[in-house]
C-alpha cells in the first residue's frame, strides 16, 4: 500500500486499538503489521508524539511473562480525537466505496 496513505491512517489505528484497552508498544506494532506492512520503528516516534500531545498517558508494567512493558493509555482528549478521526475516516471510506461501485456499473 502507498506509504503516504498509510502514515496518515497509522494515527487512527493506534488510537482505535488503545481505545479498546491499554496497550504496550510492541503489541501495537504487532497488531498493525498483521494487517499491513509498516516500518515498525516509526510507530514509536508516533506514540511519543501522541503522548506529548496529551492523547496518551504511559505507565510501566512488570509482566509475569517476559520483560517489563511500557503501556499506553488513551486519555479523554485522545478519545475525542479518536472519534473525530473515525468519523472522518468513515465518511472518506464511504465516499470511495460509492465511487468504486458507481465506476463498476459502467
Amino acid at each position, binding site marked *: 500500500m502507498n*506509504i*503516504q496513505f498509510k*502514515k*496518515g491512517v497509522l*494515527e487512527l489505528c493506534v488510537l482505535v486499538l488503545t481505545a479498546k484497552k491499554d496497550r*504496550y*508498544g*510492541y503489541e501495537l*506494532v*504487532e497488531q498493525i*503489521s498483521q494487517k499491513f506492512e509498516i*516500518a*515498525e*520503528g*516509526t510507530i*514509536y*516516534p*508516533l506514540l*511519543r*508524539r501522541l503522548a*506529548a500531545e496529551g492523547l496518551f498517558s504511559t505507565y510501566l508494567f512488570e509482566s509475569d*511473562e*517476559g*520483560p*517489563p*512493558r*511500557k503501556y499506553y493509555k488513551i486519555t479523554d482528549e485522545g478519545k475525542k480525537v479518536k472519534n473525530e478521526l473515525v468519523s472522518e475516516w468513515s465518511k472518506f471510506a464511504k465516499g470511495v466505496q460509492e465511487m468504486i461501485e458507481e465506476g463498476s456499473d459502467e
Partner: protein
Amino acid sequence: MSKEVYLNELIQYLKPLPPAEQADIIAEFREHFELAEFNGRSKEEVIAKLGNPRLVAREALAQYQIRKAGKSLSLSGVIKAVIATMSLGLFNLIIVLLPFAASLALLAGVFGFALFLIVSPILLSIQHQSIMILTNEFFLMAGLVGAGLLLFIGAVKFTRLYYDLVLRYLRYCLKVIKRK
C-alpha cells in the same frame, strides 16, 4: 547487523536530543527487541522490519524540534524545526523549504520597509545635504516615522503568529509526507 549495532546507530542519530529523551527512545527499542525475542522472532527479521535507524531518528528529531520551537517561538527554534523536517527527504525539502523561504523573505521585507520608513528623515537629509528639510517638511517626516513605527510593531506581533503558523504547517507535513 546485530541488535547492539542497530541501537548504537540509533543512539548516534539521536545525539541532538536531550539525554533523558534519548534514553527513553532507546529503552523503548530495547523493549521491542526483548519482546520480539520473547515471541520467537529472529533478530534479522526484527531489524529488517524496524526500518533504517536513521529514518526512525529523523522522525523523532523533527518532532522534538517542532515541539521545542512551539514552547519558545524563536526564529532559531523555528529554523531548526524546518531543517529537521526537511531532512526527512527530498520531497519535504520542496514542500517545506519553498513556502518557508518565500514567507520568511516577505516578512524580512516588511521589517526592512518599516526600518526604512523610520530612518527615512535621515536618508532624506543626507540626500538633500541639509537638515533644513526636517523642519520644512516636519509633518511629512513625522508621518513617515510614525508609519514606520506602526508597521514595525505590527510586524513584531505578526512574527509570533507567523512562527506558530510555520510550526502548524510542519506538524501537518510530518503527518502526511512521504517517509522513504
